[in-house]
């Protein structure tokens, strides 16, 4: 049983890291999609505010993506460490 655990530990760590990073990408996709949806609807309602809306959209998207990248870095660490 010990040999099996040793052989399984590194591939499972790699798989865990990869699955975690993939889930983080799903989270980022959903989050940024919602931001885009809200921004586009707001521009449709009031086209002359599109510059302000675009600036806020990009800022919020960067914040959400920052959170997702935290998770991707952790997934990477799970693979390497």
């Amino acid at each position, binding site marked *: 049983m010990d040999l099996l655990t040793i052989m399984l530990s590194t591939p499972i760590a790699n798989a865990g890291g990869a699955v975690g990073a993939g889930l983080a990408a799903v989270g980022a996709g959903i989050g940024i999609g919602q931001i885009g949806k809200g921004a586009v609807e707001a521009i449709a309602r009031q086209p002359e505010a599109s510059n*302000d809306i675009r600036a*806020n959209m*990009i*800022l919020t998207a960067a*914040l959400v993506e920052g959170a997702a990248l935290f998770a991707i870095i952790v997934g990477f660490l799970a693979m390497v460490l």
Partner: protein
Amino acid sequence: MISGRFKSLLVAGFSVFYLFFSTAVFGQEDSLHQAAKKGFNAKEIIFGHVLNNHDFHILDIVGDNGEKHPISIPLPVILYSKQRGLEAFMSSHFHHGEQNYRNYMMLTDEKIEELKLDPNKYSAQDILAVNDQGQIDPSIRIYDISLTRNVVQMLISLGLFLWVMLAIAQKYKTGQGVKSAPQGSQSLLEPVITFVRDEVAKPNLGTSYEKYLPFLLTIFFFILINNIIGLIPGSANVTGNIAFTAVLGVISFVVIIFSSDKHYWGHIFNPPGVPLGVKFILVPVEFISVFIKPFALIIRLFANMVAGHIIIICLISLIFIFGNMNKFAGWGTAPFSIAFTIFIYLIEVLVAFLQAFIFTMLTAVFIGQAIEGKQHQHHEKHEDSMLA
């Protein structure tokens, strides 16, 4: 037809049945791993690009007997240790890790495997102190302050940045662009500088934006020029280095702290209009967020740049990985891989600009939050563009 319950039982039975086969694959895992490594080591190429090196590695020439002859520009190695003092020499003396020089040894991936060192503690391009027989001396602690690839590239981009900016400033001093229309590189940079001033500095910092504008412009252009130069094939990955982004984050943190006043700290430790029970939760969260916000800046820039570079290298490596298995599979993968790589490359150029802008914008937002108290005294209205 098969009933629903029996179908789900069959599905469960098949899943458990396949689970038994999956363990057998693990048993073969190591030999497969070794074969792929000897042919084409994608991991070595990725980490060789993303991490720091003691030389500018240009290319490898593979000889007839399979030996690699690397072609690279060596860089100075500067080492300091208490026992041996300060030593400086060119990294070409190491001959890519094959020889020891002056009782120092440079590690490579093969050596780490050979000497059975712990790969978590030691990585390629580390320099260790050895005695005359070539054995590692663990008591000597070396401080590696050499001019590595990232440092040299950062200095090159710094020189380029200063040259461009000072030339343009000189042109403005002689009146070109002030009394007459801007020309040449002035018309390239003036919209960008005006953009940073009008979209980033003024909305977030209010009336005292001029104090912080040089800092914000420096951060923006420095990150931008390092991002762009890092995208050139063969160059080093400066902004994808956590030490580089950590220093930028710490500098932003220091600026934020030094521009905060007692209104800011009052709002953190005693938020107005909050019931007492919620305050117990809110005050620690607010206090920690003072440190988390610059930390997020650091991680965001680092992770975006590193992820982009790794994706590009992985897509190109796909060609070689498939090529090792079957020559025609390699040729077939090439058009798709190159198409994807071009697509990702264009996205990376966008990300280069975007990350520089986001770093600057968020620093401006945090400074704006810190100096907010002074604004309340000048204006009655609250700045709407600041996000919590």
